[in-house]
């Protein structure tokens, strides 16, 4: 257990293992994304109330779910880097922020595009939309804080503190925004009890949620690999890697 933890902190090991994970995870992710998108777009029946515009759910819900989860992953990585001074947790935290921001942005954008044919407006100030907007600002704050520091080590520590503060605040923000706008659609997927949406629509949605989690993992690992190379460029193992590389 502890040796695994130590290995996680070792850049060469992480670089190698993430490379071999990506080799099979990336094709699976892309395949799942295409299958899920085609399934949702072409093979499911339209919703009886919203018609075909509901098909956006297969990208809107997964991006929203993963973007919120990504904030917690970022905060946990930040906490690990602050408490145990683990450099690789630092790298993970740094890599998560832009991915999370991009996913939140996509969720907001697809939500807007979904809203126009369904409710006749591009933007509503309802609880969820507003919470997602605040989440986007929280992500952008982390990115901006990181960019503002010249000393990148201090930058990651500052971002870790900020993301922890954000983590404490997110439930409060979500609850207060929910309360502020109490007229919102009830959550449409429940894992316990009866599901509110038909199973023929649920399976592609679950596939897409898994695909987006996998996509997030891929992006995280790829960003971490680039960051590791940059940070470790003066060390022996990277030089050996560069020297042994047959121009691929």
């Amino acid at each position, binding site marked *: 257990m502890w040796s695994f933890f130590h290995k996680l902190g070792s850049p060469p090991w992480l670089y190698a293992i993430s490379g071999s994970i990506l080799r099979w995870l990336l094709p699976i992710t892309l395949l799942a994304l295409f299958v899920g998108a085609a399934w949702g777009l072409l093979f499911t029946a339209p919703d009886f109330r919203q018609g075909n515009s509901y098909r956006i759910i297969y990208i809107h819900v997964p991006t929203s779910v993963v973007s919120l989860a990504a904030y917690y992953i970022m905060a946990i990585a930040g906490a690990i880097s602050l408490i145990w001074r683990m450099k690789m947790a630092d790298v993970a935290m740094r890599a998560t922020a832009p991915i999370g921001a991009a996913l939140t942005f996509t969720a907001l954008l697809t939500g807007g595009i979904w809203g126009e044919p369904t409710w006749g407006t591009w933007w509503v100030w309802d609880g969820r939309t507003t919470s997602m907007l605040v989440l986007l600002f929280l992500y952008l*704050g982390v990115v901006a804080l990181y960019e*503002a520091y010249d000393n990148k080590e201090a930058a990651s520590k500052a971002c870790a503190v900020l993301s922890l503060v954000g983590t404490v605040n997110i439930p409060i*923000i979500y609850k207060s925004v929910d309360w502020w706008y109490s007229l919102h659609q009830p959550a449409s997927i429940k894992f316990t009890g009866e599901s509110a949406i038909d199973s023929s629509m649920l399976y592609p949605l679950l596939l897409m949620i898994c695909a987006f989690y996998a996509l997030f993992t891929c992006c995280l690992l790829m960003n971490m690999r680039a960051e590791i190379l940059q940070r470790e460029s003066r060390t022996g193992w990277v030089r050996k890697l560069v020297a042994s590389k047959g121009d691929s």
Partner: protein
Amino acid sequence: MNAPGTAGFFLRLLRRQLVLALRRPIEIINPLLFFAIVMALFPLGLGPAPDTLAAFAPGVLWIIALLACLLTSESVFRGDFEDGSLEQLLLSPQPLYFSALTYSTAHWLTTGLLLALVSPVFALMLNLPASAIPALAASLFLGTGILSLIGCIGAALTVGLKRGGMLISLLVLPLYVPVLIFGSAAVRGAVEGIPVAPYLAILGAMLSLGIALAPLAVAAGLRISLDA
């Protein structure tokens, strides 16, 4: 050096902050002037109809108070960072948690408290019903405390940076959202005749949480900024 120190130390630190603020009264008056000027912009932008102004007054007053807190919190640690006394504070044996809390308290006493005290005047100018004025003052009294604590986190994280001005608003404003929601809801509730106590209780709960946790983040932020 030790036994009388801890509590006395923080009282002395608080007194020092207040004396420093009083030496430059313009720093204390600035947020109030800001409040007055921005408040005067709203009738110009929205039109002078008393009903419109009264409808917008709870939100408008709260947003201006929030911006005034934000603008002043940027400079909480600035002076002490530049002359090196912040470094001395970090090296001192006193727990940084309480020092951070003291800085926040001093900031609240010189901005939030004063804003809460003068807010009734501006509320009357914006035609807010008189029955809502106690709720406004009380919600600002509690809410600006939270704003000061959160603002200090942002200030601590950006104090070492040359260009922290816009950055701090990006860091801090999303965290202000719950305070704004419940603060303005309290005032609007008072206008509509709903009991205000639950809103104030929620603000008080958030303030307690802030007092417990925010100084930790401020202390961590100060350590990072001074190491950088």
